[in-house]
């Protein structure tokens, strides 16, 4: 097992290094010129040339990359070109915010997706199953940003009118004055619902098909003929064995959420990685963009690794390969 994990970790390092190189070239090539960003306010005509030398932008790209990575791995992530804030610090804060949203999103989505998936597999080709299949198709085709706005329109504003109160039930923006679990629920309910649509749609289909495979297998038939109730066989035997496949998918998707909540955070005006990215992009702040991309890449790789390892734990046959 240790060898398996070690081999996986070693294999991830070159991917990460290459990805960081790709990001560096992408942002430097396409992104705004950092020297230009700094000199926007200045009237000094030599500002541009001077800043370029100061920031080391006059050197060849490979040299800049090696220099940047050298600082980066030692924890020196530099400061924003706009606000002079420490990049490491602002990414750290943003990660905390996004992690909260991602955690509740994943928790909610997995409970719903597993319940729906098990139901659909258990009652395959029944009207209920077709209903959920239709819902999953709708979820996959749903534009996240539009669904968010529609939720705000109906569940924040129209619900208020419907109940004839002045108080908003589900907040459409973070509520700074409130505290406690109830306030947290009212604040997170809509963003979690919106980010869950696509996750639930994908995961419930996945759970349905892996559950169908399990229910079709010999040991289920054995358990049934032994006299166990159908309910017990489905939930104890079938669910347990079918979860392995889904858990790895959940782990992979959860890792992608750290860089994948751009739309949700934008629609609900929430601070976090997505908002940090959009602000940096709007400001042409490549000092934030490059570390941001690398950090999200690291999260994707770590969660993929985690999924691989989990898969190895759940299914020992994989380890040999």
């Amino acid at each position, binding site marked *: 097992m240790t060898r398996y994990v070690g081999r996986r970790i070693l294999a991830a390092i070159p991917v990460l290094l290459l990805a960081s190189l790709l990001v560096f070239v992408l942002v430097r090539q*396409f992104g705004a010129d950092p020297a230009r960003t700094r000199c926007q306010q200045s009237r000094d005509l030599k500002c541009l040339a001077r800043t370029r030398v100061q920031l080391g932008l006059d050197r060849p790209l490979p040299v800049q990359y090696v220099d940047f990575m050298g600082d980066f791995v030692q924890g020196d992530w530099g400061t924003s070109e706009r606000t002079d804030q420490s990049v490491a610090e602002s990414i750290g804060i943003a990660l905390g915010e996004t992690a909260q949203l991602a955690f509740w999103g994943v928790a909610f989505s997995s409970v719903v997706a597993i319940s729906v998936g098990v139901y659909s597999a258990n009652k395959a080709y029944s009207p209920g199953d077709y209903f959920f299949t239709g819902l999953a*198709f709708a979820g996959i*085709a749903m534009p996240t940003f*539009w669904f968010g*706005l*529609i939720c705000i*329109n109906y569940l924040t504003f129209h619900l208020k009118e419907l109940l004839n109160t002045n108080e908003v039930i589900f907040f459409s923006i973070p509520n700074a004055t409130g505290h406690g679990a109830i306030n947290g629920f009212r604040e997170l309910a809509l963003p979690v619902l919106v980010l869950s649509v696509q996750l639930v749609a994908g995961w419930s289909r996945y759970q349905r098909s892996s559950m169908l495979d399990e229910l079709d297998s010999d040991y289920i038939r054995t358990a049934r003929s032994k006299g166990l109730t159908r309910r017990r066989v489905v939930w104890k035997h079938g669910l347990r064995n079918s979860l392995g496949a889904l858990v790895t998918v959940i782990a992979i998707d959860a890792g992608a959420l750290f860089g994948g909540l751009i739309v949700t955070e934008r629609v609900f005006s929430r601070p976090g990685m997505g908002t940090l990215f959009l602000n940096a*992009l709007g400001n042409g702040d490549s000092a934030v963009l490059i570390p941001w991309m690398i950090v999200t890449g690291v999260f*994707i790789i770590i969660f993929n690794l985690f999924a691989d390892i989990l898969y190895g734990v759940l299914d020992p046959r994989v380890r040999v390969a």
Partner: protein
Amino acid sequence: MSSFDEHRQIRESGAAIAGSVGSTALIDEATSELVIVRSQWRSVARRFFHHRVATLALLIFILLALAALGASFISPYDPNPPLTASVLSSARESPSAQHLFGTDKLGRDQLSRILVALGQSLQVGLGVALLSTIIGVTVGSLAGFYRGWIDALLMRFTDLFLVLPALAVLLIAAKNPEPSFFGLFDLPPATSTEGMILLLAALGWMPMARIVRGEYLSLREREFVEAARAAGAGGPRIILRHLLPNSVGPIVVFATLEVGLAILTEATLSFLGAGVQIPAISLGNLIADAEDTVGTDLAYLILFPGLVLFLIVLCANFIGDGLRDALDPRARK
């Protein structure tokens, strides 16, 4: 598919061949091959039209495409009229018989604007699907058949892109005002429709390449490929005459799904401010433009463009699902 269906299908294709035998005086190898090809596609079509939801989706998709194509004929109003007093005076009108989807904050007819935006979305969706299929099939064919360094490069390259958040990469690349092909020649910027198609295809062909590669890897070990090789066929001939025709199913299905995905991605980018800019119209920037009407009586300005967007993507996905069932009946459970 039931054995009865299968039986009927065999009988039908038999009848088709028999019919052609009766109608043509001279039968050579080429015509009999043609008949078999056509009857195969006919049975695919028959299976597709058995899928009622997919048939309905295809019908709606065609209707929407026709509406977008004929937008300038059927639009009741100018989508981007000069803002004269008479136009401005009809601002903020709720949906009515004159303005089915109402008018926006400047008095422009929302239905006419949505039709133009729908045309833009469909152009992007179909353009990206076509272009990324061409690139993906070419790269996937080379990698899957010849293996070697092309294969290694493709796999490492896709691994690399899987590690980066796709939307963020697209947003950064869309920001580039003067894109070029590795500095060799200029490309249209992502603020134009062609530029957006190029951008989405340039970053979206990899899944198709992987699918084609996977198909070829299993097909190239089969007997009919071995037979072709033994008969002296070279690489290009094996790819074009044997491997590609046998991989048409997954390619067509994935290309269809790519249409929906591209439309959705373009709308999201457009909502976030990348892509075509006002006064050009897209479904994404219509919704972004109306974002401040949330919770007011004007919220229909958000509702309708989004519904159209949702509907067109849903249709594309259902068509893809129907094609999957029709092209590979054995995979159906």
